[in-house]
């Protein structure tokens, strides 16, 4: 701010930033050639590096985290430009159940084998992919309640909306990170369901 600044330069800079005038890449080249005149403290640089690393990790986990049934169905439906009503009318699932399924609010085990068969035929989902997602989603739905209770003890937010959103996000993060084994009884139930689903195909 100490150096003199010309009004014309300011005007031209605004025009440049708004895309009204161009330097045909000369400015970008100059930036590369210019020695950085401003020095930044090592602590500032280290903090920024950490922030970027965290963003990189979170992007990576988002990209590699396995899909749940809800996320999968929603993406597939949107990809095919369908409305929930279109799926409901073609598969015979009740609208409430389908909406809960898209939001991973219901265990896939609660849906009849007949409905699953219709869904698989409608979306052309391979059985092995469907099995993986059913396992994951059942695990998420089964553990979600306990995640929420645990997290609620640590959460001090007063705003109810914010609190719910934080818990929801935290529960999902926990699910992605955790590989919690289901209780034996629950596991048996899941295996039996998946076996029946496979036989349904045959």
């Amino acid at each position, binding site marked *: 701010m100490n150096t003199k600044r010309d009004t014309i330069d300011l005007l031209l800079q605004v025009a440049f930033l708004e895309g009204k005038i161009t330097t045909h890449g000369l400015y970008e080249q100059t*930036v590369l050639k210019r020695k950085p005149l401003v020095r930044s403290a090592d602590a500032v640089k280290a903090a920024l590096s950490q922030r970027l690393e965290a963003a990189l*990790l979170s992007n990576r986990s988002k990209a590699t985290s396995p899909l749940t049934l809800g996320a999968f169905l929603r993406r597939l439906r949107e990809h095919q430009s369908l409305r929930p009503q279109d799926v409901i009318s073609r598969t015979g699932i009740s609208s409430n159940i389908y909406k809960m399924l898209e939001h991973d609010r219901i265990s896939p085990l609660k849906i009849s084998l007949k409905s699953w068969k219709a869904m698989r035929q409608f979306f052309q989902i391979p059985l092995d992919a469907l099995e993986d997602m059913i396992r994951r989603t059942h695990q998420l739905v089964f553990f979600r309640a306990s995640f929420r209770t645990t997290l609620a003890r640590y959460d001090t937010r007063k705003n109810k909306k914010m609190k719910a959103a934080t818990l929801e996000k935290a529960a999902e993060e926990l699910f992605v990170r955790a590989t919690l084994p289901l209780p034996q009884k629950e596991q048996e139930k899941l295996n039996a369901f998946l076996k029946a689903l496979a036989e349904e195909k045959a």
Partner: protein
Amino acid sequence: MGFFIASIQIPPAVTDFRYFSYRRMARFSNQQIVRELKEGDRLGCRHLVDLYQERLLGEATRVFRVPRLDAEELVSDVLLAVINKINTFEFKRSDGDFHYWLMTIFRNRVRDFMRHRAQTDGLWENFDEAALEDDETYSATEREVVRSILRNYEESLGSPEENEGSAKSSARGALEVIAEVLDQLETWERVLLRCRALEIPYEDIARYTGKTAKQLKVYHARVKKKFLNLLGRQTPKVQ
């Protein structure tokens, strides 16, 4: 002997990790940084910061006069955007593609900052006018021409709460007159004005204009005057 080895102290400059990372930096290409970031390698973040943080900070504070604290925030936003969008980036022509892509993000962020400043404090109010008063480079009428264009620009942006889409198009419309007046100048004059506004060295501009750097230095003030004159004639369009 054991005591002797234990008492040898390695100079801190050699053990400092930053020393090694700096030495390595000089050999890093943009392609390497992009590859590291796409693979999720944390080292890519450090290289990105080492290569661009001070560079962009310098551009924001020195060329666009963004206050230091705002500039630091702006630069970290730019680098975060690079991290978040790295998977959408592809090299098409050369290693420089990444630099141009990053500079586009930087330019957009600076533009957003300028717009925000225009909507809240006003661009003219942030301008260090005292320096010009002493100079007596421009007359009051000439100054008023510039002021009216900037005012128009600020008004076209409206308040920060207003519809962003319509603000953008009307903001560009308010600056239409600048492009029109520049078109009336000779090519070398146009290049000189545009480039010096972004503090591109005279020597670099000389390569594109066929005039020497010394000549350009002399002509710069005159060309500015000419530009202002033409701008003054177009003022009715602005108002």
